[in-house]
């Protein structure tokens, strides 16, 4: 399959070349480090919520966990609307888990930015790999699923039993999807066809 020419053009830009070849401490591997830290911040707290929804550590109160989700939508497709809904809505009490949730949001934002940089460094490598599209799709589903957890479990006023009953299946999906995202991400290193334009992996 022919590799689109614009990928080559993109690769030849100064920024892309710098990302790939710079000896600077802020070069490619620094961004990879940042991407991994972002991963830990997004998926770590997610895993904790999922385990809680699956019935582990029932002593952890559920309602405060809701705040882990709110700010997450800043990076979603409805960012503007959600900013209005959440960022400046004083009638919603700012619950104590806000700081954790900020971390999760921070993790997603970090990974959106560092992810773009990583793709810019090796655009032909990413865009010619079906696994790359699989990863993006899984991220989409994972965020959609998180939104469902927020809407169906945390947003409605309901007892803990009802929350758990609704949350269990969604938590399973959440774990599977985030595990899928990580797996697809790891496999990018082993499934590429081109390293850069015209150079096979």
């Amino acid at each position, binding site marked *: 399959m022919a590799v689109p020419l614009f990928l080559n053009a993109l690769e030849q830009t100064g920024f892309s070349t710098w990302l790939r070849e710079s000896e600077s401490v802020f070069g490619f591997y620094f961004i990879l*480090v940042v991407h991994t830290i972002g991963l830990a911040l997004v998926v770590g*707290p997610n895993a904790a919520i999922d385990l809680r929804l699956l019935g582990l550590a029932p*002593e952890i109160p559920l309602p405060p966990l809701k705040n882990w989700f709110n700010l997450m939508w800043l990076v979603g497709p409805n960012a503007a609307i959600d900013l209005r809904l959440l960022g400046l809505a004083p009638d919603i009490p700012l619950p104590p888990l806000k700081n954790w949730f900020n971390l999760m949001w921070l993790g997603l934002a970090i990974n959106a930015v560092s992810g773009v940089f990583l793709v810019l460094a090796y655009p032909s490598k990413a865009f010619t790999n079906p696994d790359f599209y699989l990863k993006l799709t899984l991220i989409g589903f994972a965020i959609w699923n998180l939104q469902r957890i927020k809407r169906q479990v945390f947003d409605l006023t309901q007892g803990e039993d009802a929350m758990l009953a609704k949350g269990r299946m969604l938590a399973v999906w959440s774990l599977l999807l985030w595990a899928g995202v990580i797996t697809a991400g790891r496999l990018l290193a082993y499934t590429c066809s081109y390293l850069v334009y015209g150079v096979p992996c």
Partner: protein
Amino acid sequence: MDFPHLHLLLNHSPIIGTMVGAGLFLTSLVVRTEDVRLSSLIVFIAVALLAIPTFITGVGAQEKIVADPGISNDLIQRHEGAAELAIWFMEVTGALAVVALWQCARRVPPAPWNTLAILVFSLLTVVLMARTGNTGGEIRHSEIRSAEENTAPYAALAYFEPSPAKFTRLMIVNKWWWAFMMDMHFFGLVLLIGTIGMLNLRVLGFAKQVPIAALNKLVPWGLAGFGMNVTTGLLAFIGMPTFYTHDLAFVLKIAAILLAAAAMVVFYLSGAFRDCEALGAGKDAPLRAKLIAGTSLVLWFAVIVLGRYIQPLQDSIAR
């Protein structure tokens, strides 16, 4: 300080340590003293952690002496094979000790299966570590080499020991197996940060509405993640021993892991955890607990950062 120095500094601890631990454990079974049992569990955990750098520094030590006159590479390979068998028994013993210590902290009486398993694995580890030490000593000390090597017990042990070259090949022959191991290594990372990292953050004062004791219930999942990563990490090292040995980021990562694990041991055993265990929603943890939690958090993230720098820093330690 180079690899032979580090290897010689560390390599007595798994041998003597497991003997001390097993001795204490047996004593606790006879005299039924809880303090003695706890001491033995802590010794097992410490030795299981120290066995990791001991194992890893062996490759660098080998490279330094293998060309020397009077050194037989066959003897080194035999020693390496013995270590590649002993290390797994050592780590399983350490993991069983963590389970026992956790049950003890929750004031659950020791589970019979766990006690029996620790007994079996620690005694097997004593034997395998002694064998590893002996084969290691024979590399330099011709005076302890003897014809005994061909007797049935030695032959039986040797039968179970892997050939280092074959073990290495087994790890890297299939790239999908390697990809799977690395994937599991990331899952372990997520479990660690999602549970132990979150507990550290709570102790530091983030999201205070969550009670500490409640959050602590998730920590066994973090410990399971650590176990996954020790397993996959050791297998990866066996797959590419010389690659990792000459990598500064890798050496520093191992140091950071040991310090992070030590911070965790200190957190639970110094009383820092007991000070804040009962703290409910909105309560602030004491300074000591915060200091340890902060240190632990910094160290775990240092582990992630250093792990990511292994690839670009390859060959950063001279061959």
